[in-house]
């Protein structure tokens, strides 16, 4: 579990870089000019340190890059489905492939594929439907080469809605699989 041990230092380093107060100036990143978005390490983007002028971000280690990638993936960790369907749209497939790639490159990472349904249809049938959706995601992951040890499937059916309300807008948000990192 080496990754776990480096998570905290990596996060701390990012935090310090973002604050810009104690960033090392004589590091190898010295040639990077703050505000120069073409060369700047993206970890400092939007951190609001342009005004300070003097702060320079740390270079990004492999671990930092991994954390960042994971954060980005976690912001896009839900795929949506049509009514009573477990077919993945091309957009959904792209999302799943991005997670699959990350999991292949990080074999000690695990996810839970949580399948959900909208409130129409009965609760236990929707449990089956949620599982079928999670399995559709799992199949894409397996086909990309993700180890079956790296994910597990759970279906919540309609029991844990993401959106409340009995309308198409809410239903569309609830017919989903969430890829949850553990």
């Amino acid at each position, binding site marked *: 579990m080496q990754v776990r041990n480096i998570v905290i230092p990596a996060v701390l380093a990012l935090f310090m870089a973002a604050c810009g107060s104690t960033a090392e100036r004589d590091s190898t990143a010295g040639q990077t000019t703050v505000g120069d978005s073409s060369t700047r390490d993206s970890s400092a983007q939007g951190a609001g340190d342009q005004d300070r002028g003097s702060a320079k971000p740390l270079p990004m280690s492999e671990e930092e890059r991994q954390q960042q990638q994971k954060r980005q993936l976690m912001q896009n960790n839900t795929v949506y489905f049509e009514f*009573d369907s477990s077919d993945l749209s091309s957009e959904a497939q792209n999302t799943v492939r991005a997670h699959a790639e990350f999991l292949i490159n990080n074999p000690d990472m695990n996810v*839970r594929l949580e399948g959900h349904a909208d*409130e*129409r*249809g*009965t*609760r*236990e*049938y929707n*449990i*089956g*439907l949620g*599982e*079928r959706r999670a*399995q559709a995601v799992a199949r894409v992951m397996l086909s990309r080469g993700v180890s079956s040890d790296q994910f*597990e*499937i*759970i*279906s*919540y*059916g309609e*029991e*844990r*809605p993401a959106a*409340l309300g*009995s309308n198409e807008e809410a239903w569309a948000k609830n017919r989903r699989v969430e890829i949850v990192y553990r």
Partner: protein
Amino acid sequence: MTHPTGAPTARRIDGWSRCLLSMSLVVTALFANVGYAQLEITVRGGTERAIPIAVVPLQGNNAGDPVDVSRIVSNNLERSGLFDPLPREDMLEKPATPEDLSLRNWRTLGVEYVVFGQLRANNVVRFHLVDVFKGERLMAYDMPAPRQVEQLRYTAHDVSDLVFEGITGNQGVFNTRIAYVTSTGAGDNQRFRLTVADADGYNPRVLVRSNEPIMSPAWSPDARQLAYVGYANGRSAIYTIDIASGDRRRVISEPGINGSPAWSPDGSKLAITLSYEENPDIYVLDLNSGQKRRLTTHWGIDTEAAWSPDGERLVFTSDRGGAPQIYRISASGGSPERLTFDGRQNLRASYAPNGEKLVLVHQSDRGYQIALYDLQRDAILPLTDGRLDESPSFAPNGQLVIYATKGASGTELATVTVDARVRQNLRQAGNVREPVWSPFLDAR
């Protein structure tokens, strides 16, 4: 036709009282939630064919008493949909004994039956049921009536059952219970409870609380236990819980789905849905040995199994034909037979106590409604007209169905008579769903 003063009933009450006493001690200690908000009841449907009856306040059951026996009897009869009780203020007399009764007073009001009597000093409810037009006393009983509030309610329910059966010939369900699931909050704050209440919504007792979903409660045939689905450690599981003691047992937790428990009529097995071998299929789990037997093998979703009353067959939901429909299979296995073809979807069927009909969720163009399916005539008979009605469950006398429906502020419970004539809603805060009606609590 005067019944002897009820020896069998008296015995029955004694047994029930003992059970209640031990249960109320345990339940109060465990759950301390007896004062939880009561279900509010609204009768919506026509009384035009209902039987006019008067339930006279019992002499000795005074206005300040915590339980008003005749009020409870009157409310019970009204909720059944079969009776139209006379308001108290319209009564011309309040007889306590047959000698006090003037048949003419009641005939004038068009009342067909009168229930009256006394709450006697020796803790006995003595009541009489008179057929006004024939001028005949149909029954007279002495019922033990301990003055503890809860137990007097149960005495009132027993009186209701006797009156109901005496007039309609069918066993009453007033002393039965319902179990249901509530959900409050949303997202990470969503909380779930499994609750048991009297059939009229009183005395709700929370049996299980969880941050994870609780689903699919199912009564054991002896009404002492519930099976249900819970989640723990990222996995679903089927549990049984003893209602009196609160003792809980996890009976199975395979990878994937553990769902839809249904007790066999002899109480020895659970039909369940498991997906660990491939995808959701029906299995039969022997509760004593823990052995399970796979009943269906299909790539479709097979779930929501329910036993026929004789235990020889099961019906279940399957989407093997495309959309979910109801199928039937022998309890010993074999190839299933599709039953329903009318409607886009038909789901979650269960048998009426006499085995002649199923109650199920039927998808029409207007959404999901509760319907009966007549097994002999192969016909769907709609009972409700909601857009998202679900989870139907027969009362043990087969005359009412309880189900969940969308209300103004979430899901709420409702009942409908099997002739679809009378519906009533049972309102409560939070989302109340998955009601299941208990079997009769003891055999008569």
